[in-house]
């Protein structure tokens, strides 16, 4: 669809390209900037179209759907019929855990319905996010510091560390499923008889271990990039002044790596908040490992419109977390880069 728009912008360069050679001051420059900007926006148009089709349209469509009732069954014909407008009932049903009652109206969702799992799934999602991101940050930092040193085989270590990150999550989950099986390698190796996927605490930690194993390298590399921006002279100066290793870490490394670290944490947090494949394959969401994304996917099979409402709620939750990060914790994904650009000029 985007290609159909191609011919129109092509006409523009004739008016837009030339004025640049005129004098550096006055009206000519304004015109040049204006037409350049116009030219640029024509060039951007195909991208905007593509984004509108793949992002804006689905989001709007999902929001529209979330205000429709799910199809109900006509008791006479046994066929599904359209549900009609729902107002905010899809949203309130999730938030207050209300389900349809057999005689009409709503009741508190009985255990066993998806509706009864909304708040526990929200709790689980945040639990996973907080624990995994904390673990990954600590381990990732440690790995990054090791990789930042110069030693023989450093590039080999850097490449090797990336292997878990490169494996598709579904495959990772399947691997860990074998490891955590009752007769699996995990129990054989440590001579234990833990039912990893059989009760809440081991099941949650199985997911956490697998997730940490997989995504710590990502953290490590982002932090490593930040570490390498710190000039060696700063450390040398500190050493001359007699700063201890701990002081150097706390007063130099931490503040200087903070921008990169915050971005890494932000990315990981947003990623962890929509965690799906790992718990879905490892535990099928049993023993309180159902995340919001798993709930959405399960709901899709039971009714699209209600699922659309749930994914909108999930979207809002993730958006709020991202907002808090950027606004209050200084994770400036965009400004950081433009700031650096200005500095160089």
């Amino acid at each position, binding site marked *: 669809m985007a290609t159909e728009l191609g011919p129109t912008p092509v006409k523009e360069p004739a008016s837009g390209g030339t004025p640049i050679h005129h004098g550096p001051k006055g009206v000519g420059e304004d015109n040049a900037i204006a037409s350049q900007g116009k030219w640029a926006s024509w060039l951007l148009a195909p991208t905007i179209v593509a984004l509108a089709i793949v992002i804006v349209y689905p989001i709007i469509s999902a929001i529209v759907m979330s205000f429709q009732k799910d199809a109900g069954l006509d008791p006479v014909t046994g066929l599904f019929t359209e*549900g009609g407008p729902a107002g905010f009932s899809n949203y309130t049903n999730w938030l207050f855990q209300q389900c*349809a009652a057999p005689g009409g109206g709503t009741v508190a969702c009985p255990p066993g319905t998806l509706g009864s799992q909304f708040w526990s799934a929200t709790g689980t999602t945040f639990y996973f996010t907080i624990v995994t991101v904390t673990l990954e940050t600590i381990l990732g930092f440690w790995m990054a510091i090791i990789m930042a040193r110069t030693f023989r085989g450093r590039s080999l270590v850097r490449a090797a560390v990336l292997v878990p990150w490169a494996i598709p999550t579904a495959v990772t989950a399947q691997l860990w499923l074998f490891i955590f*099986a009752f007769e699996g390698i995990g129990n054989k190796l440590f001579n234990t008889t833990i039912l990893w996927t059989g009760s809440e605490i081991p099941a949650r930690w199985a997911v956490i271990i697998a997730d940490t194993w997989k995504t710590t390298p990502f953290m490590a590399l982002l932090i490593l990039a930040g570490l390498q921006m710190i000039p060696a002279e700063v450390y040398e100066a500190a050493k001359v002044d007699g700063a201890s290793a701990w002081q150097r870490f706390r007063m130099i490394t931490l503040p200087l790596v903070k921008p990169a670290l915050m971005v890494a944490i932000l990315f990981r947090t947003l990623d962890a908040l929509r965690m799906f494949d790992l718990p879905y394959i490892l535990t099928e969401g049993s023993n309180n490992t159902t995340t919001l994304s798993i709930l959405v996917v399960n709901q899709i099979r039971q009714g699209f419109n209600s699922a659309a409402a749930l994914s909108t709620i999930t979207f809002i939750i993730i958006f709020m977390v991202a907002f808090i990060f950027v606004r209050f914790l200084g994770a400036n994904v965009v400004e950081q880069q433009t700031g650096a650009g200005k500095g160089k000029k």
Partner: protein
Amino acid sequence: MKTPKFLLPIATAGVLALTLSACGGGGGGGTTAGGDAEQGLDSRGPITYVQGKDNSNVVRPLIEKWNAAHPDEKVTFKEQTDQADQQHDDLVQNFQAKNANYDVVSVDVVWTAEFAAKGWLQPLKDKMALDTSAMLKPTVESASYKGTLYAAPQNSDGGILYYRKDLVPTAPKTWDEMMSMCSIAKENNIGCFAGQYAKYEGLTVNTSEAINSAGGSVLNAEGKPSLNTPEAKAGLETLTKAYADGSIPKEAITFQEEQGRQAFQNGKLLFHRNWPYVYNLAKTEGSSKVKDVLGMTALVGADGPGASTLGGHSAGMSVYSKNKATALDFLKFLTSEETQKFYATQGSLAPVLGALYDDKELVAKLPYLPVLKTSIENAVPRPVTPFYPAVTKAIQENAYAAIKGEKTVEAALSDMQASIESASAGQ
């Protein structure tokens, strides 16, 4: 002001994009099937057959054979992934888009009611009727919705009770008999019995087997839940009691089919409920410790053979198909004796035709057929309901809690009942 000028191209592009993409979107979940079901009943021409991954290479040879005989009505094979959930979602998307190229589709027995109620499957009646008299009754029931056949039973599957011939003198006939043999397991320091009790589809299978075998049922004839009954309670209690007293080993709460099979093959179980596929693996795999002592019998119930849960697939015809006369012929071809035999020998897929289970040639090849026949004859289809996804979740969630002892059997059953009632009440 220069901003409007800047925005103009972007705005134009954006509006255009939205209009274009809006054309592509359709309404969700519509059910105006009445007209579509009357279309194309007599027309013939090329059609497409849609099925999940053809692991044992049975579909391609069959289609080649059909195409050689029908040069003007060729069948094209559209292969989906090997994941059941993905196959389901792919079918839903294409039905919603009214894709005329999904003429004949393979549907899991548990999807039939949902697809039929959405108006996506052509009812196989009147002009489109299919002769089902030679088929095993439970397979026909599982392909029907509200008394109408909506798909042609294609292959079937039922549970088998595997046991250790060296330790069990005579195969048990009832649940209590089997439980009384658990002392043998204890003497040998192995687990007594296990099915699949991890929280997934397999738990629904095992739970409804337990309930049906005790004379109860998950849904009654009207499709309403009927779990607050003494029979259902007795059924679920067989599992909870056995798990509590250790007859079902603790680790069975993590078992899907494969983990259970591994445990049985490693000689760690006396009795094991699983599907027919286990037979070949347990007989031939090098690591199997039960190769020479593998016994098979029908599942056990309260006082006689248990009621297995039925698996398998049916072939449905899309209401949006343009060449329904050809599609019907293809369904007849898929259910013919010759094709069914080929399915059994080439793909180890259990036939739907009763007569084939007594076919000497076939039994020599697949020794589990007589046991499987008893199993399927006594089988009960999994709850036939258009709300199956919600029903299976309700069963899994509550049966899992009950087996682990986190909930009483009564509470689990009444929560199941309430969940299913709520799901079928619609929004």
